[in-house]
């Protein structure tokens, strides 16, 4: 096992993770607690982007409805909390169960379609979830729901203080990164990537690509649901607006800006997205314009996203 990373991009990513690990300490030294909030939100979105990347980047399944899972996760915290159930394990279990089931049922239908149809049907299902929560008057409908207390876990796992919540999020992020790394390098991942390039060939090799893709879709949904659960705890206010279709569009933006189909791409893409959002919105209220132009430029000129630019520094044989 090698200790030092071999490539420029790997060095950057390792440094980035180390920085994230000590970030709360840095922010307390420079006395800027606000940045911890910003970073927490960024890392939650990064988990969501990583989950989207699993189906979009590796699997070639372009979902325009992934924000639905963020909403589902958030409401799996919000609705029990509304009835004064604050047990964290209950919230987590519910999130995994509901987002997994939703992904299983909708995925079974969506994955019968391809290309444009897949994009549109994932969008349709997320709109259904959106409108369901909009019309649930009991839980605030359009106006959303306030969560008064965070999910309760045993003392050593508590997420009550901002720093504790940050490390919760950071840990989930690390687990997700590790899990996805193992997944895509296992046979499972090879089949998923293989069926993106040539599904017929994978089928003639004897793989039931539909089942593999469906499993991948469910895994992705569950991870995104957990991101939603964290977001619910973090914002302590949830509303159907979290799962509007433009949110799903932003998630795709984060994945592609970082580099779709790469392990760390979505993480740096999300970091760049959140940073730019914060930075640009301080300069001008018209920051969406710059965002939109960047997005267009990214597609027209910037192939491979940030990961692509970083690995341009790696020597030829080291590129994965």
């Amino acid at each position, binding site marked *: 096992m090698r200790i030092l990373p071999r490539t420029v991009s790997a060095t950057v990513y390792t440094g980035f993770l180390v920085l994230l690990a000590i970030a709360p300490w840095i922010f307390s030294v420079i006395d800027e607690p606000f940045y911890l909030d910003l970073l927490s939100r960024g890392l939650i979105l990064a988990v969501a982007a990583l989950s989207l990347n699993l189906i979009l980047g590796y699997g070639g399944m372009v979902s325009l409805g992934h924000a639905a899972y963020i909403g589902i996760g958030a409401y799996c915290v919000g609705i029990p909390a509304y009835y004064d159930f604050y047990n964290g394990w209950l919230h987590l279990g519910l999130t995994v169960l509901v987002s997994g089931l939703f992904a299983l049922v909708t995925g079974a239908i969506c994955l019968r379609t391809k290309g444009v149809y897949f994009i549109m049907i994932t969008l349709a299902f997320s709109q259904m979830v959106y409108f369901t929560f909009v019309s649930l008057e009991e839980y605030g409908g359009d106006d959303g729901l306030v969560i008064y207390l965070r999910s309760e876990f045993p003392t050593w796992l508590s997420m009550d203080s901002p720093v504790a919540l940050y490390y919760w999020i950071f840990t989930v992020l690390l687990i997700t990164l590790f899990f996805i790394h193992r997944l895509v390098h296992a046979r499972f991942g090879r089949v998923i990537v293989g069926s993106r390039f040539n599904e017929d060939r994978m089928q003639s090799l004897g793989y039931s690509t539909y089942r593999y893709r469906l499993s991948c879709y469910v895994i992705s949904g569950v991870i995104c649901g957990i991101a939603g659960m964290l977001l619910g705890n973090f914002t302590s206010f949830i509303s159907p607006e979290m799962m509007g279709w433009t949110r799903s569009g932003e998630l795709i933006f984060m994945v*592609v800006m970082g580099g779709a189909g790469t392990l760390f791409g979505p993480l740096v893409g999300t970091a760049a997205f959140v940073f730019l959002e914060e930075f640009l919105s301080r300069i001008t209220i018209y920051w*969406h314009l710059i965002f939109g132009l960047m997005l*267009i430029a990214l597609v027209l000129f910037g192939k491979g996203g940030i990961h692509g630019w970083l690995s341009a520094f790696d020597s030829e044989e080291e590129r994965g």
Partner: protein
Amino acid sequence: MDWNLLITQVLNGLQLGLLLFLLASGLTLIFGIMDFINLSHGSFYMIGAYFCGTVVSMSGSLLSGIVVGLICTFAIGAAVEWFIARRLYRSDHLDHVLVTFGLILVFDTLVHMVWGAAGMAIPLPEVLNGQVSLGTLVLPTYRLVIIMSGLLVAAILYIMVSKTRLGMLIRAGASNRTMVEALGVNINKLFLIVFAIGATMSGFAGMLIAPITEASIGMGNEIIIIAFVVVIVGGIGSIKGAFYAALIIGLMDTLGRSYLDDVLELSMPTKYAETAAPALSAMLVYILMAVVLAFRPQGLFPPAGSK
């Protein structure tokens, strides 16, 4: 049963259906011929409304507002095709989604910069602002105008597509693009025209609705998703499909919102029906699309000769 209410609701459904058709007919052609997913099609809807509103407030004439609005949306549509969409016809759909999502951000912000964050009301001339009474039934004149204009545009489009040379090329492009190219047709010009006409019709829909709802930022972002549902249900590339699907979806949505709770009360207690009905009626069109995709993925009326 209140028949007057039913007739009013059916007319409202028709109105929504025809607006959807104006959006979806352009979308389905851009989709079917260029294989391009244009999420920003709804931006033309918004831009049309704003240009029209500006001219109306300066000149006081709705007609001149509409004429200027049509010209502007045609030009902007052509510019988007020329500078952006054209480069991406051969890339994958993910790129289309990203670029047009970026365009939505750009257009929404530009409108914000030029016209401010508040909405813009468009006053109606006296003639259109009244009501028409037929027996006991009283209908707002302007709603009828919207329905008539929608039908008129549908008729013009039908004649253009089925009787003219341009229409023949469009139909040919929708069923087999490669063959049209191989026959030596200037495909770039065809694409430019189709894109710009689509944008113009979308803008026209925005101008029609704005006097009722007023022009606002992001007004196209909700309706464009339903327009996509129309395109998928009708069959990608099929104008006829878009027409029927738009009417079906417009009526279904409107009637669902007003009558679904009554229907549900037949089978469940009032309390549950009142909770379930709004959710279900908002979901109705998406359920229709999911069912169509699951059982008839090519849509209800796919263009002739397509796969």
